[in-house]
């Protein structure tokens, strides 16, 4: 390790200790009737106001991995990586109305997870079970990716992250995270998110103001980047990318942005963040204010071009996730790079904590309580969720250690396609119950099966292998041997294709079932449940919500 790496590591450790103390203190913050109840531990008592929700959901959606991987994608492929911006712009108008309906119905009936809602809406344990399992399976690799984000930083600092000993810093970080999440529940990431965001905002603003002038202005940077991207990639024989889209990837860009936006609030951790807020107004205000992070993400994506123009090389060949840490390492003094690394590291802890809580809630409510212990008390429920959150984190660490990081990226890609298949049962059900539970199950099976199969058929950039990405050439699309798009090379996001198949099956099966006189199950919700608001709207000042 060099002297500057020691400085970086010291700052990283100090800031990490600060958030650890905060994580434990969080248990006492604005506390309700006791953390042994699932609603207290797993949803912060549904009492978070506008500010807390902004930091919590912001920390939840814009993860460390995003901050590392989006610029890395721009660095590697150019304009396509910028899809993160349209994704987070169309996101809020799309979810603005459904999310407040979900909040209202969940509050009225005490739902903690999206699968709780599906159970209540359709009275079908099987459908709720499928939704819960999909959520858990899609969340696990997402947590593992947060670890990949931390490890990219650790590698830049010069810590070798191979073997069990090399993973030790990561294991220590996660044990600490697991312990304070266990004791404080959702309040821990909510409080830590403040620190994370302040650090991230400082770092990005400095980077975006300082770096372009340092490297000769944006015009020069884009010129250099375009030259670098136009070089031939020896693996594919084609250019690496371009600063604008090509004819074949424009549709992919739009469908990837749309599909990702549709998927995001189906993820259990996003739902957890929303359900923890105090009122409809809190959520609506946040839908207006959260795009501040989108601006940040867009600016950060451009740093991928700055890295190209600056001639930054990853720590080791192909390890593009280290591009942004390396850029900071080369252009900032050691102490500031240390702050930036701590921001990314802490940025990984917040979503990892929320995701493990969300997965634990799903396990407890929709598997443990439905199948294993039907008459569990609220205390047993709470204890089970806390234990489950430990298991989930342990699983994610083992995952990160045992499995090649590239594989966890593949799984995350699959996770996005999988979670999108819960859209008909969760999102459409907020508006209509016309689709029947059996039809939704059939649609889920087809969407899942076909989506994963299509991902399997996509080769890596070298033309060989499987799970090489989420872009499918339309010409490869075959419905029982029929190629509706001929030999087109235009690419599309697989998730959208699978979702369309899912919806078509759900509609067709519903029409047939209704023609045969099938009745849907029991719906325990009524129309007004979806518009209910909390009686008290007054927002306490920020100071009053602090510890």
């Amino acid at each position, binding site marked *: 390790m060099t002297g500057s790496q020691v400085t970086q590591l010291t700052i990283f450790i100090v800031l990490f200790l600060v958030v650890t103390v905060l994580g434990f203190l969080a248990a006492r913050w*604005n506390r*309700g*009737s006791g953390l042994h109840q699932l609603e207290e531990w797993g949803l912060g*008592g*549904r*009492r978070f*106001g506008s*500010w807390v929700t902004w930091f919590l959901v912001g920390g939840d959606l814009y993860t460390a991995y995003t901050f590392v991987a989006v610029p890395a994608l721009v660095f590697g492929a150019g304009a396509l990586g910028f899809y993160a*911006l*349209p994704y987070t*712009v*169309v996101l*809020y*108008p*799309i979810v*603005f109305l459904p999310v407040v309906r979900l909040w209202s119905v969940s*509050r*009225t*009936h*005490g739902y903690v997870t999206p699968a709780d809602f599906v159970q209540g809406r359709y009275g079908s344990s099987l459908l709720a079970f499928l939704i819960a399992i999909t959520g858990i399976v899609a969340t696990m690799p997402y947590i593992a990716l947060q670890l990949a984000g931390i490890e990219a930083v650790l590698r830049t600092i010069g810590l070798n992250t191979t073997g069990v000993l090399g993973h030790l810093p990561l294991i220590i970080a996660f044990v600490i995270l697991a312990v304070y999440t266990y004791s404080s529940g959702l309040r821990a990431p909510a409080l830590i998110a403040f620190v994370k965001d302040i650090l991230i905002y400082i770092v990005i603003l400095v980077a975006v103001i300082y770096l*372009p002038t340092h490297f000769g*202005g*944006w*015009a*020069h940077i*884009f010129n250099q980047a375009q030259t670098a991207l136009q070089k031939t990639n020896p693996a594919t024989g084609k250019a690496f990318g371009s*600063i*604008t*889209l090509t004819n074949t990837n*424009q549709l992919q*860009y*739009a469908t990837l*942005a*749309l599909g990702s936006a549709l998927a995001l609030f189906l993820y259990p951790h996003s739902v957890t963040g929303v359900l923890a807020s*105090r009122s409809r*107004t809190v959520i*609506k*205000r946040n839908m*207006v204010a959260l*795009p501040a992070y*989108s*601006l940040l993400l*867009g600016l950060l994506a451009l740093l991928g071009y700055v890295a190209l123009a600056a001639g930054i090389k990853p720590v080791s060949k192909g390890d593009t996730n280290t591009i942004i840490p390396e850029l900071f390492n080369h252009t900032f003094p050691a102490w500031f790079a240390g702050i930036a690394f701590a921001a990314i590291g802490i940025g990984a802890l917040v979503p990892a904590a929320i995701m493990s809580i969300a997965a634990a809630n799903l396990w407890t409510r929709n598997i443990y309580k439905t199948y294993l212990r039907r008459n569990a008390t609220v205390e047993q429920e709470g204890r089970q969720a806390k234990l489950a959150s430990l298991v989930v984190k342990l699983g994610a660490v083992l995952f990160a250690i045992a499995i090649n990081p590239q594989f966890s990226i593949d799984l995350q890609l699959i996770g996005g396609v999988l979670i999108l298949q819960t859209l008909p049962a969760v999102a459409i059900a907020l*508006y209509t119950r016309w689709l029947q539970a059996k039809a939704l199950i059939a649609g889920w099976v087809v969407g899942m099966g076909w989506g994963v199969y299509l991902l399997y058929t996509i080769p890596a950039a070298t033309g060989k292998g499987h799970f090489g990405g989420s872009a499918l050439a339309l010409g490869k699309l075959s419905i029982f041997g029929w190629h509706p798009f001929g030999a087109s090379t235009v690419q599309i996001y697989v998730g959208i294709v699978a979702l369309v198949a899912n919806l078509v099956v759900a509609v067709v099966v519903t029409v047939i079932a209704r023609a045969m006189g099938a009745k849907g199950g029991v719906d325990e919700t*009524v*129309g*007004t*449940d*979806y*518009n*209910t*608001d*909390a*009686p*008290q*709207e*007054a*927002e*306490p000042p920020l100071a009053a919500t*602090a510890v």
Partner: protein
Amino acid sequence: MPSTPTTPSPDTPPPPQEGAGRVSGLIVNPWNLLLLLPMLMLVVPWFNHTDPALGGLPFFYWYQFAFVIVGVGCVWIVYAATKKQRVDTTTPDRLSVDDLDEGGRA
């Protein structure tokens, strides 16, 4: 952040509970249509070129940054315009009265 109370006073007589709103439960408001406008950002051919650049940023990039403002603007207008919308605050829920009153507690 200061806020204006947007809900009817708790004195409003409770609506009939049994089956109320089973009919629809949908609140239709024309302002909501404004939420469709930001979807135009997905029409890629409109902005997939480099000129005219702004401050060195190719059109592709600054156009999409500008759309962040369009997105925020549309959501904000819908939020502001539908603030006074009648919502039901009287339906009982499973949270105890004590919990509900703890919002402002330090």
